Structure formats: structure tokens, C-alpha cells
């Protein structure tokens, strides 16, 4: 499957970056037939969610 092939491209990157790319690609694909989709908000939601998890993880390591 092409989706898996695309995701495999990024296996050497940090897992958080891989997740962001995979989710943003899925989102972009769902709106690919639109010329100018308004995806600012959903992309921010994806990045915020994954960044929050990263922050939690960093705080746990600090503790």
C-alpha cells in the first residue's frame, strides 16, 4: 500500500515527527480534491496533541 510506503520513508525520524507526518498526510488526502482546503485548525490540533504528549513525556523524565 502506498500509504505504508510513504510512512516508511520517515522511519528514521523521531516517532513524534512520524506521527505528525502520517496524520497530516491522511488529513491532506481526505481533502485532496479541494483546491484550497482550510486545514490550519485541524493541523494545529494534530501538532498540539502530539506536542502535549511530548511535553508530558519530558516532564516525566525530569521527575
Amino acid at each position, binding site marked *: 500500500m502506498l500509504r505504508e510506503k510513504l510512512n516508511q520513508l520517515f522511519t528514521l525520524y523521531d516517532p513524534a515527527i512520524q506521527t505528525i507526518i502520517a496524520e497530516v498526510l491522511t488529513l*491532506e488526502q481526505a481533502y*485532496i*480534491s479541494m483546491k484550497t482546503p482550510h486545514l490550519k485548525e485541524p493541523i494545529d490540533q494534530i501538532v498540539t496533541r502530539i506536542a502535549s504528549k511530548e511535553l508530558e513525556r519530558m516532564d516525566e523524565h525530569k521527575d
Partner: protein
Amino acid sequence: MKFERIILENFRQYYVQERLDFAKDNQRRVTVIHGVNGAGKTSLFLAINWCLYGEGVDNVGELISKEAIKQASPGDTVTMSVELSFLHDGERYLAKRTRRGTRMLDGSVQINSSDEFIMMRILWDGQAQSIKNPIGTINAILPSNIRSYYLFDGEKIDDFAKPEAAKEVKEAIYLVFKLETLDRARRHLETAASDYRKELKTSTTGELLNLLDEDEKARGELGKKENRKVEITAEIQAARRKINDIDQRLREIQNAKFLQQQRDRVEQDLKQRRSELEDTQNLIRDISTTSYYTIVQPAIERALSLLEEKRERGEIPSNIRRQFVQDLVAQMQCICGRPFTAGSPEHQRLLRILDNALPGSLEDDVLEITATLRAFNERILRQRSELTILMKRRAELVDLIKDLDAVSDDIGRQLKDSQFEEVSRLELQRENFLTDIDRYNIETGELTRDIEGLKEKIAQLEKRIAQARKNEKREKLLSIKFDLAQKAADAIKDMYQTYADDMRLRIEGKTKEIFKMLIWKDSHFRDVCISRDFELEVIDRYGRPARPELSAGERQVLSLSFITAMSRISEEEAPLVMDTPFGRLSSQPRNNVTRYLPELADQLVLLVTDEELRDQARANLESRIGYEYILEFDPKTSCTTIVEVRR
């Protein structure tokens, strides 16, 4: 995606309902639909496109069956729908698009609002689950903008092989291999990172650190002041104990005993008076703060005076109610019980009061206002009187305390000037301790003020620190968001070209492989390549570009090779639906294509004329055909019936 079944209702020449099942077995994966020109092959092709994507198929005339419109009465609703069931990634889906219109008097149809599109996922237990975002789901399965590479019109199939087709080839690779998706994702992530960077620049870095520093200092200072206050309180208590000891000693010394006892009484008295003075001052303060309404007293008095004047002039009633006066007139009797006669001065006076009387409700209002104002006035007067008494008492107490202080000072002076050294020394010590206590009291006052100030400051700092902590967490999060978005965009940028080149080379190789398989002049053509500029080129045996010289049939085979190569390389399971695919092919290339095409698609749907598929071409497909239909067009009704000829 593999098509399972299509049900058409009043779609173009498919009147009422027609159904068709698609072959989807691995061995028998070909569905052949025969139809003469105009029988409805293109309509069936359109029906699949319209059901899944809706838009873009409207410029082919009226979609609603003309027979259905004709059979409907004016005002009736005519319904057209296409239902398509398909399998994808191990799940079964149902998609249905419906259009409704109202039959008009002139025989036309007025479309009611927009088309209705629903999509359901069929669960393992047979239950249907509605899909909330059907358009997004279809785009994730087979995006609208790449459908033309899977569902294509055979007459346009050679588009990719035309000399000016580099743009189409590039676009096809971009869309099918999600390069467009990657590019959009990179751009959107870069925009997000840029927004986060701007937001970070406006943030208040370091504020929390400064506030924590300030808080630490304030708390340190508070601790010092509180400790000092405790020390001073202890000092005061120690000084008081010393004074008590001195007083005791003075009571024991014969020559000081009398004065000390006198001082004890004075101090006791002073203590009581000071306590009374404090109580009095508190009472004065209470009355002063709660009697703010005394400022309206002149207005109240003026209002009462006006009411009284009007009452005396008979313009408003006296304080006697109208009903009471009416009763007196009716009984012809005075309040005291004395009778009076009609026309007597008393009788005339009562009649005048009644003449000037106001309507009942207004009379009540006037009486009520007068009563309220009087009560208010009385209260003000009472409080003013209380205040006067308290002020007088305070002045008395102040004088009394002054006198007692003077007596106490005098006693102290006498003891200090005593000819007895011990008495004089003790009194001096006592005075020093009192001075110390005064000094400590002043310092306590200053410390109390400072402590309160510091506590207030710390409370404010705590609030600001809590806010700054929130801001700092937000900033931290923002910083991570920026980092992740930028790195994700950079990662896509880094991998994009590698991936694009890899895909281009793989399609190139597969196109060459398929082209060699399908073309009948395989020895004439040496190579097929896709340049970095996405030019699809065929190289002949002389090493020269041969594309401009390709025949229409050869171009069709080249395009077909490119399309099927994309399908194979993308590994996306998708049907290949071809409308009149072999129209331009002579028998040999047609034989080659029919021999290999079933292997190049997961599911093949061929919409063919009776001329397109016969002899060897038909024999090549024979073992792979799962379903076969004939579209029977009835010239009497202009409607088409789908007749199954093979299952």
C-alpha cells in the same frame, strides 16, 4: 477498492431499477458489458462516476430518466439514484447518491435542492454504520482527482502518449503517488511552524524566573520582619515584667509605698478610661459611617414643610382619610359626637375637605410618603442626638485621661526626685523601660505595616506566578509545536525528491515492461523512459525518440502501459473501468492487450461494443470473465435493460 454491485434507478436510459454485479474473484476478475452505440455503456460509466463523486458529470445532459419524467404527473417527485457497493481494505461499503426533482407542467423537471450522498460501512455482524464524512472517505479510498486513471474513457486513453502530454504525465504521477499530498502537507506544516514562531516571539520569556526571584526576596524579608516582631514582643513583655518588679519593690519600700499605690489606682483608672474612650470612638465611627443619609435631611424637612403648607391650604388631604370624612358627613356628627346641621360651619368645612380630596390611590400615596418622610426624619434626629452625646462624652474622657496622665507624671517625677537613692534609681529604670516599650511599640507598628504590605505583595506575586507558570507551560508547548512542525516539514522536504525520483524510475521500469508485453512491434521499440521533466518517451531501435511517429493504436498501448504501471506500482487495489478501450486497436494489439490486461488490474470492467471483443481477443479473456452482460436498448421506449448472459 473492488466493485461489488451497482443498482441504477431512473438514471438516464435505465428506467425504474437495473442491477449489475461485478466479477471480483482473483481468477475471474473481468466483467464484460456489451452494448451497441447508444445502448448505455457511457451512461453506466457515468453512473459509477456520479455515484462516487457527483460533480463533473452534469454537462452530459439530463441525468434523470426521460421515461420516468414522462410517466410522472405534474407535481410528482421523480427520484433518480445510483447505489454502489464495494470492498476496500477488508471492509464492505455502500455508497448511494440520490437526486430528486419535481415534474413540471411543460414536461421539464425542477431539481429539488442538492443531491443526497450517503455512505455506510457494513460491519462484520451485518449492521450498517453511517459514515460521517463520506466525501473525505471516498477521497481516502480513491481520490476524485485520480479517478480518471482508473475509470477512463477508452477514446481519451492515448492522452498520456501525446507529445504535449508532459503536464498530464507529471500530474498523474503527482496525484496517484500522493506527491501532491506530500507537497501540501509540507507547505501547511511550514505555515504552521511560521505561525508558531511568530507567536513565540511575542511571548514573555523569563518572566517566571524574575517573579520567582522577587517572591523569594519578599518571603525572606517577611520572615525577617516577623522574627523581629516576635523578638520585640518578647522585649516588651520582658520590660513589662521588669516594670511590675519595680512597682512591687516600690510598694514594699516604705518611702515610696504611698506614691506607688496612688499610681496603681491612677493607672487602673487610666486603663478603664482609655478602654471607654476606645469604645466611644468606635460607636462614633459606626454612627458616622452608617448615617450617610443625614445629608438628605434638609431635603426631607423641605418636603415635609411643602406637604404641610399644601395641607393647610387644603390642596392635599389632611392626615384624615377621605372615607372617614364621608362617614362624618353622612352621620352629620362631629368626631366628638356632637351633631351638626346642614350648612353649619363644621358641615361646610367637611364638604370643603371632601371637594379638595384626591382620588383614593393618590391619597394613599401622599399619606404613605408623608409617614415615610417623617419616620426618616425622626431617625436622623435621633442619631444626631446620639452622636452629640457621644462626642461630648469623648471630650470628657480625653480631658479625664489628660488629667490622669498628669497625675501619673507627677507621681513619677516625685519618685525620681526622691531623696532615697533606691527609689530614685528604680523610678529612673522604670522610666527607661517605659521608653523602651514606647520605642518597641513604634517599631511593632512599623513592622506590622511592613508585614501586611509584604503579605499583600506575596499574594499578588503568587497570582502572577501562577499566570506565568501557565504562560511558561504554554511557551514550552509552543516551542515543542514549532520544533515538531518545522522538523516534520523539513523531513517531507528532504524525502520528497528521493521518493519522487524513486517512483518515477519505478513507473518507468514498469511501463517499459508492460509496453513490451502489449506492443506487437516489440523489436522495433528498444526503451520507454520518463524524463526528470516527466516526458513519456519511447526510444526506437535506432536510439531515437519515436513518440511523435507512434500510430493511434501504439499511443493507446503506451498510455495503457503507463496507467497500468501506475496502478501496479502504487499497489492500490482499484478497479480498472474502461469505456470502449479497444476501439482503435487492430486485431494483433487487441489480442495482446486482452491476453495481459486481466493480470494488470485487480478488477477489470470492460464496456465494449460488439465489434471490440471477438475472435481471439474474446478467447483470451474467456477464462477470466466472471460476469457478462448485454445492454439491450428498446427503441420503443428508448430505455435500456441490463441482461445477464453469464455468471
